[in-house]
Every structure is written in structure tokens, then in C-alpha cells.
């Protein structure tokens, strides 16, 4: 008898749950649609911020167009797919006279300081077609110069479109950020409040560096020519 009552209760609960399910779908049926139709609409900026797309370089706080990277090659050896290739910069070439002076000094037994190569990389290439977004390079980087970008909408017509030059990309981004900030600053100046430029705007790295407007415009022009390349 007890078993029968239990079965009866289960039956009623089961039938009730069917109704609950129908109510949920009916609510969705009449409710707002939440998908976006890609070529015509894109998701808002806030929604893509948590997206982890292809990696990008992080600029220095004082010079956003130059990466923090010290060309230590840790990421290159950490990458399981071998999609990162970096070339270091060479030490500046000495003129024959300087070379001679250094040789003479060394001959005298002194230890002259020869100019060393800058630590920044000469090229930083990233093949996204092989990348599995495993974040090994990000963990390996000793100076936190790599991060995931939030590029949602990637489309290309050839494989080469996904072989990125991240140095150029960083320069372009920095110039864009600066141009946007300048535009904002001039806008607020026109409206009368000069100190409005200091307000927190879009989360750009370049905000930390206040620079003159004419420099920015030349930088953006340079970035544009690089992007075209």
C-alpha cells in the first residue's frame, strides 16, 4: 500500500514537471531573442571583453607602442605548437673608427663597454592557424608581455591572414587608442571642460601616457602605413 502511495505521488510529481517544462519553453517562446545576427549586428563590447581570442602583446606602461617583451624566448620554447617566432635585435653596428678604438682599448688591457643589443624583439610573429589557445606562452612569460586579446570576429580569405605580426598590431592598437583619446580630449575641450580628458574612458593602455596631439597624429599616420603593409 505504501509503495502504491509513493508511486502515486511520483506520478503526480512527474506530470507536474511536464507542465513546468512546457511553461519554461512557452516563456522563452514569447520572450526576447538573445542571439545576434552576425554580419548585421555584433555583440556589445562588454560581452566580448571576457573572450579569449588570439594572443597579443602588452605594451610598456610609458610607451604603449613598444612591448614589455625582453626577447627571452621563453614563450617560443613553451609553445607546444610552435606558432611563435621571435628574432632578437642585433647590437648597433659600429663604424670602422669606433671598432678600431675599441680594439686599441682592448689591446691596452682595458675593458671598454661595447654597446649591447636592445632587449626588445626585432620581429614577433604569431601563427594563429596552429595555436590552440593553451596559454602556455602567457604562463611562461617572465615580464607578462603576452595576453589573450578579445578579438571575437575573425574571418579571412587566406591562410596568410592568420599569420600575425604582433609588433605591428601593438603599434596600431596604441595609435588607435591614442587617436581615440585625443578625439575625446578635443571634444571635451570644445565643450569647455579642459580637465575632462583625465576622466576614465575606454580601457586603453595608452591612457597612462599624456602626450602632445601632433605626436599622436604622426604616430597614427605611421600605424596606418604599417597596417597597410
Amino acid at each position, binding site marked *: 500500500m505504501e509503495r502504491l502511495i509513493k508511486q502515486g505521488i511520483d506520478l503526480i510529481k512527474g506530470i507536474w514537471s511536464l507542465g513546468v517544462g512546457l511553461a519554461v519553453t512557452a516563456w522563452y517562446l514569447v520572450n526576447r531573442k538573445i*542571439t545576434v545576427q552576425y554580419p548585421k549586428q555584433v555583440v556589445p563590447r562588454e560581452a566580448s571583453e571576457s573572450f579569449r581570442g588570439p594572443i597579443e602583446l602588452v605594451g610598456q606602461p610609458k610607451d604603449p607602442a613598444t612591448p614589455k617583451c625582453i626577447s627571452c624566448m621563453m614563450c617560443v620554447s613553451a609553445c607546444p605548437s610552435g606558432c611563435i617566432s621571435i628574432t632578437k635585435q642585433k647590437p648597433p653596428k659600429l663604424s670602422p673608427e669606433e671598432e678600431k678604438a675599441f680594439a686599441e682599448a682592448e689591446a691596452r688591457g682595458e675593458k671598454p663597454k661595447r654597446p649591447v643589443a636592445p632587449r626588445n624583439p626585432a620581429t614577433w610573429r604569431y601563427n594563429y592557424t596552429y595555436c590552440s589557445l593553451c596559454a602556455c606562452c602567457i604562463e611562461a612569460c617572465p615580464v607578462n608581455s603576452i595576453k589573450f586579446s578579445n578579438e571575437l570576429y575573425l574571418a579571412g580569405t587566406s591562410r596568410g591572414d592568420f599569420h600575425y605580426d604582433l609588433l605591428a598590431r601593438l603599434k596600431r592598437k596604441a595609435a588607435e587608442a591614442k587617436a581615440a583619446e585625443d578625439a575625446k580630449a578635443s571634444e571635451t575641450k570644445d565643450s569647455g571642460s579642459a580637465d575632462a580628458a583625465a576622466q576614465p574612458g575606454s580601457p586603453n593602455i595608452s591612457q597612462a601616457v599624456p602626450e602632445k596631439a601632433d605626436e599622436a597624429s604622426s604616430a597614427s599616420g605611421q600605424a596606418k602605413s604599417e597596417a597597410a603593409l
Partner: protein
Amino acid sequence: MNEFSLWTVFTLVVGLVAILAFIAGNAMALVWMERKVAGFIQRRPGPNQLGPAGVLQSVADAVKLLFKQILKPSNADSIIFFLAPILSFFPVALLFMPLPFSPFFTAYSPNLGLLLILAFSGINVLAVLLAGWSSNNKYSLYGAARGVSQSVAYEIPLLLAVLAIAFQHGTLNLSEIVEQQGGWPWQWNVFTQPLAFLIYFISIFGETNRSPFDLPEAESELTAGFHTEYSGMGFALFFLAEYANMVLVCCVATALFLGGWKGPFLDGFWWFLAKAYGLLFIMMWVRWTYPRARFDMLLNLNWKWLLPLGALNLLATAFVMKLF
């Protein structure tokens, strides 16, 4: 009433042509409706590119199916393989004949209309079996075996529910059953026979292989079930038959339980279509709500619940009809 005359032949031919057009048009409309309902329930817009709100999408699909090459697996049994889709679609036109869309729009009104529908809808099971058997494919065979055991099982409670209505009205003629019901909802059979309606409505999901009872074509287990190997028009015929059967069972439910073409005002075929489409919408709603039932659950529900309930309902109906 139904003596053979030239006029009968004429109405039959016109009715058949109209029914075939109705089936084809309905299938396309229903595919669009199904995709829209699915989309809306999943909080996306569904097809919306081709034509206003994507209505032309199913036309494009139909054209694609027409132009697709018909392939046959090399070890399949040719004759049966190509016979099966034809056999699946063939009886459908016949099944629509006795449906009373309105007093005027009834192609053929025999005394045993209900029996005709029940008898010929069984041919679809044979088509499923032949398709699965001749495809020489394990998925097809499994799908066919499931389809047959399921359809045969669910036909019994369905029949019991329909019989209860026949007992109540003392006729198997669908037009007369509609005639005896009133226009207002409380005059419909669904109020005198709610249990029969419930059993009928659950059974038609099993009969038409619709989710949550779509085990013969369970795509996550059997690729596409019995029609795995069919392409082009072979597939299209199965598809057409499936949707036509959906329309059919909903139309029969409308005639039996929901007062057919009668409405509170302005009787006519629009009431019939509106009620049938309402039922079709509920079928789609259910499909996109519930997960697929396991096979033993499916048969347990049938043999342990629907069949005894149907039999009891039938007995009670017979008892009440005899007493009063």
C-alpha cells in the same frame, strides 16, 4: 448515398488533387513553422534571411531536395529500397479523403471513414520496415525495428480512444461525429471524453515518430534511423509522409474531439484548420521541450498506463452508453 456515379468520380478526383496540393503546401508551411517555433523556444530568430521572416526557406529546401542526386547503397535491395518511400507516401492521400474540413470540403464521406484511416495508416509501418531492411545498414535496421514495435504498440491505445468516441456517437463516419458535436467548446467531445483525448494525444506522438517518442530516427543514436541511406526525393517522400501524418492525426483529433469545422460563430473550414494547427503547434512545443524517452520507458508508458486506461475508458463509455 455513396452509390457509384460520375459525380462521385469527379468529386474524388478533385478532392485527391486538392488533398495532394494541401499536403505539399502544408509540409512546407509546417517545416517553416517548426523551425520558427524551435528557434523562438531556443531564444533565437530561426530562419529569417529568405523572404519575409524566412518563409521562402522551405521553398529553397524543397528545390534543393528536388535537384539532389538519388543514391543507393551498393548492397541495398533496389526494388524494395525504392518502393519503401513510395509506399510511405502513397496511402497519405487516401487517408485525407474522409476528413470533413467542412460540409462542402469533404472529398469522400464513407460510413467507415474512421476505419479507413486507421487501416491505411498502418501501411506507413510497413514502409518504415521495408526502408530499414532494404538499406543494408545497421542504423536503418535498428530504426525500422524500433519504428515497427513502437507504432504497433501505440496503435492499440489510439484505437481504444477512437473507439470510445465511436461508441459514444454510434458511428464511424467522421462527418456525422462532427455533426453531433456543438460549436461551443463545452459541446465538444474533449469535455465528455477528456481521458480519451489525452490517450489519443499521447499516442499520436508515438504513431508519428515525433519527439519525445522519435526513437526510429533518433539522430544522436541512429544517425537518421530508417531513412539514413535515403537522399533527394527518397528522403523528401519520407519527410512529406511524416508531416502529412502529423497533419492527419491532428485533423482526426479535431474532428473527433474538438468539434471539427464547428465554431462559436461562422462555421467553416477555417475553424477546422485553426484547431488542427493549434494541435500541431502543441506537438512542436512538446517536441522542443522534452528530451527523447528511452525505449523501455516508451513501451512501459504504453503497455502499463495508456492501454489499461484506454480499456477502462472504453468500458466506462460502453457502460454509460448502455445505461442512458
